[in-house]
């Protein structure tokens, strides 16, 4: 079969784009090299919906960020994705930095950012009692928010697949050729996908994919960001997203609540050669927490439940590059979608949709299009009456598997059965939070493995943490 559109890369941008295109009667395939959606930059970032004052006036980043930020609340509520409009603060510690935030404020006005205010130290302390006494003031952007980034990608992919989009995992693009108005995308395993239109939203791999197609070169720098996540008992240490003044490497170390009531501290910003290398460097967390302590002194590695690192694809042009391949207007490249890529993602999807339609014309709409997905049951958030009703329908919701986060067997089974459902332990974790709590799966890991094995009909020791060779257990004991 020849697909109308192949989207390479099932991150938050690829998945939202797939959802946008699922409005039409098009055969769309979403190709992902990993075992799950949101396995690259989308799964390991700050989860911030930036207001949009950082990008320079007139850039694509500025335009799509402000628009995406405005769209986010609605997209998340439609897709049942955790989102909170908690606002952000850029804190200044010197007169110099006060001037800097004034600049940011002016830039924000130019970009069309709503609801900004420069506040003094007293007001800042009132908003955030744990802020450093050294703080002189801050830029408060009330339109900023926080979102669970991987859940946004998962929600979008589930929606898209529910509308008929096909998700192909473990498909690593080896070569792309174009002949007779048809692209042939070859996987390293030998299989291939044919399509009439290709959207290259491969994140860190996007420059490589572009080069594989027609040799066009884009300069992408992998920029590593390391984070520490604090226990939920730290809730309230910060209620808004607290930035320090940005520098040439990005927006600096932030302290923010997450949508799941943890506190996130990070990121560092280190340019790396290997885009697949997401190791946390030795000593990095000590540096990050020391820097974070400047704005919120109370944060400490003592409360850390996990650390992680992600890589953002920094373009040397310092702007998003969304353009057709030089010699082929059926091949659309999305390059350098780094921060504020997450905040911009709903707007990017719409922008890409318009570009695609400008070439292929407006197709018929999909009569079965549903902008949403089946609402996931989140047991711990239900009232007692709702819990009883859910259990009456399916007793699997009465069996708690993850005690730290109160995740039931029913939720885990639903996450596996969903369109674009989980096929490994980390997939279950990102969809349900089983294993995200303070024991980090120490207790529930083996139970999740059992449920996966049952649902997928494969032996226990073939289950993986995140696909590939990430097996958790090997052969039977003697």
């Amino acid at each position: 079969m020849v697909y109308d559109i192949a989207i390479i890369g099932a991150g938050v941008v690829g998945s939202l784009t797939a959802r946008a295109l699922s409005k039409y009667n098009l055969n769309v395939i979403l190709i992902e090299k990993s075992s799950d959606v949101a396995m690259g930059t989308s799964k390991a970032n700050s989860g911030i919906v930036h207001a949009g004052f950082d990008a320079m006036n007139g850039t694509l980043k500025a335009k799509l960020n402000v628009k995406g930020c405005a769209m986010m609340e609605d997209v998340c509520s439609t897709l049942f994705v955790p989102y909170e409009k908690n606002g952000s603060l850029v804190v200044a510690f010197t007169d110099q930095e006060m001037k800097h935030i004034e600049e940011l404020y002016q830039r924000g006005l130019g970009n069309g950012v709503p609801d900004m205010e420069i506040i003094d130290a007293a007001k800042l302390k009132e908003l955030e009692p744990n802020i450093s006494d050294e703080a002189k003031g801050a830029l408060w952007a009330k339109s900023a928010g926080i979102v669970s980034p991987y859940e946004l990608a998962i929600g979008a992919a589930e929606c898209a697949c529910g509308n008929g989009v096909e998700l192909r995992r473990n498909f690593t693009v080896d070569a792309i050729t174009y002949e007779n108005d048809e692209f042939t995308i070859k996987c390293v395993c030998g299989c291939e996908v044919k399509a009439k239109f290709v959207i290259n939203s491969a994140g860190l791999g996007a420059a490589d994919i572009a080069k594989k197609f027609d040799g066009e070169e884009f300069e992408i720098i992998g920029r590593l960001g390391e984070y520490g996540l604090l226990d939920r008992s730290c809730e309230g240490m910060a209620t808004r997203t607290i930035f320090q003044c940005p520098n040439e490497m990005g927006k600096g170390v932030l302290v923010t609540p997450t949508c799941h009531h943890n506190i996130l501290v990070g990121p560092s910003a280190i340019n790396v050669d290997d885009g697949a290398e997401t190791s946390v460097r030795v000593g990095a967390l000590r540096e990050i927490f020391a820097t974070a302590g400047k704005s919120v002194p109370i944060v400490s590695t003592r409360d850390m439940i996990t650390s992680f690192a992600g890589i953002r694809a920094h373009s040397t042009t310092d702007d998003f590059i969304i353009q057709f391949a030089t010699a082929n207007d059926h091949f659309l490249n999305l390059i350098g979608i780094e921060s504020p890529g997450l905040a911009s993602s709903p707007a990017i999807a719409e922008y890409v949709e318009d570009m695609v339609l400008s070439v292929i014309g407006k197709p018929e709409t999909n009569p079965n299009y549903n902008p949403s997905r089946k609402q996931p049951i989140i047991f711990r958030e239900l009232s007692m009456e709702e819990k009883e009703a859910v259990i009456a329908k399916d007793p699997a919701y009465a069996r708690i598997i993850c005690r730290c986060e109160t995740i039931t067997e029913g939720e885990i089974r639903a996450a596996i059965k969903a369109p674009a459902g989980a096929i490994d332990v980390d997939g279950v974790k990102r969809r349900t939070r089983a294993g995200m709590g303070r024991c980090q799966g120490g207790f529930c890991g083996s139970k999740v493995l059992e449920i996966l094995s049952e649902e997928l009909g494969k032996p226990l020791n073939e289950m993986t943490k995140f696909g590939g060779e990430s097996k958790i257990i090997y052969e039977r004991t003697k």
Partner: protein
Amino acid sequence: MSKILNYDLVVVGGGPAGMAAALSAKDNGIPEENIIILERSDRLGGILEQCIHSGFGATYFGEMMSGPEYAQRFIDLVNETKIVVETDTMVLNLTDDNQVICSNKEDGIYAINAKAIVLAMGCRERPRGALDIAGSRPAGVMSAGAAQKYVNIDGYMPGHKVVILGSGDIGLIMARRMTLEGAKVECVCEVMPYSGGLQRNIVQCLEDFDIPLYLSCTVVEVHGKDRVTGVTIANVDEKMLPIAGTERYIECDTLLLSVGLIPENELSRQINLEMDPITRGPKVNEMRETSKRGVFACGNVLQVHDLVDFVTQESQIAGKGAAQYIKGASEPKYVTCKGINGVRYTVPQRIDINNQEEVKIYFRVANVYKDKRVVVTCGGKELWNRKKLKLAPGEMENVFIKPEDLAQMNEGDEIVVSIEEA
């Protein structure tokens, strides 16, 4: 809530602590059919079920047995009574008026009104994320207890070439267990200058198998993309920071962590029990009653024990305390207990001076000490003074307070346990 039950005593957790507490409450006059044990696993026994090595029961039964054997003694005793046991049942909430909300597949969600509650939820292992270990996040990093379950309960090998971080008892036990199953255990790294495990386990689990124990050494980096391919270890200085230049790479496919146990007190915090920041368990009196009247705690939820035998003894006290409370107890008059000079904590943290029996105070020390004295005083008066050849953080110690000494104390006095020069 559609279903509400009433019991005299609800025991949360069916491990050795919960079973001993329930049996003790019965022995102290609570009708057995008015006692219920709630257990989240599919069977009684708790973590003992996966501890198939020998070494349990020497103190309590005077014989060496495996974990499941030790547990079975109590399971049999519970089964001989009319004590109600609900397995596969999770307690979701406790309320301020001693209602226990729980959930299982057969009954759904229901509530139990309790006259008294014994908390016996045990403890959990500290995960990797709580440590500052750099590197990637591949499969093959797991807690020693999780590996123990895969090997002993599920019957699968979690790895073939193993490095163990932390010389807590589970880490030591798993070094031997993995070796016996054919894996190669490269080494055990311990960040402290001494092991946190029992001396007998160091001898029987490491030395007997020529497994090296590196003290003042930690894992600084994990390598591997999908599955662990190796770890970098390094020596640490007195502040436990890695010393540059001492790093070395060890090839392995598995990193097991035995880096501490944390009492599992989500429920305790829900009802705002006063907590001890050192034990990370509730503060209790000599009957193991918490800061909330009628709520008791025992076993590893209260303090991480070295031997299950002491868990049993402590839980029998809690069961008795709960029985006394149900039958009607007088208002207590407390003296407090504290540790100084290397004594990290005491359990109990307070004692009712009306108590008519000898009180055993458990404690752990902060460092390895040789040829010292353990001294207990109250208001300048010496109550206990014993020479100890060796004290180590891995072993629980205890002292006794006589009822006649208690009788002479006044409410608010302070009992102080300390380590002094011999």
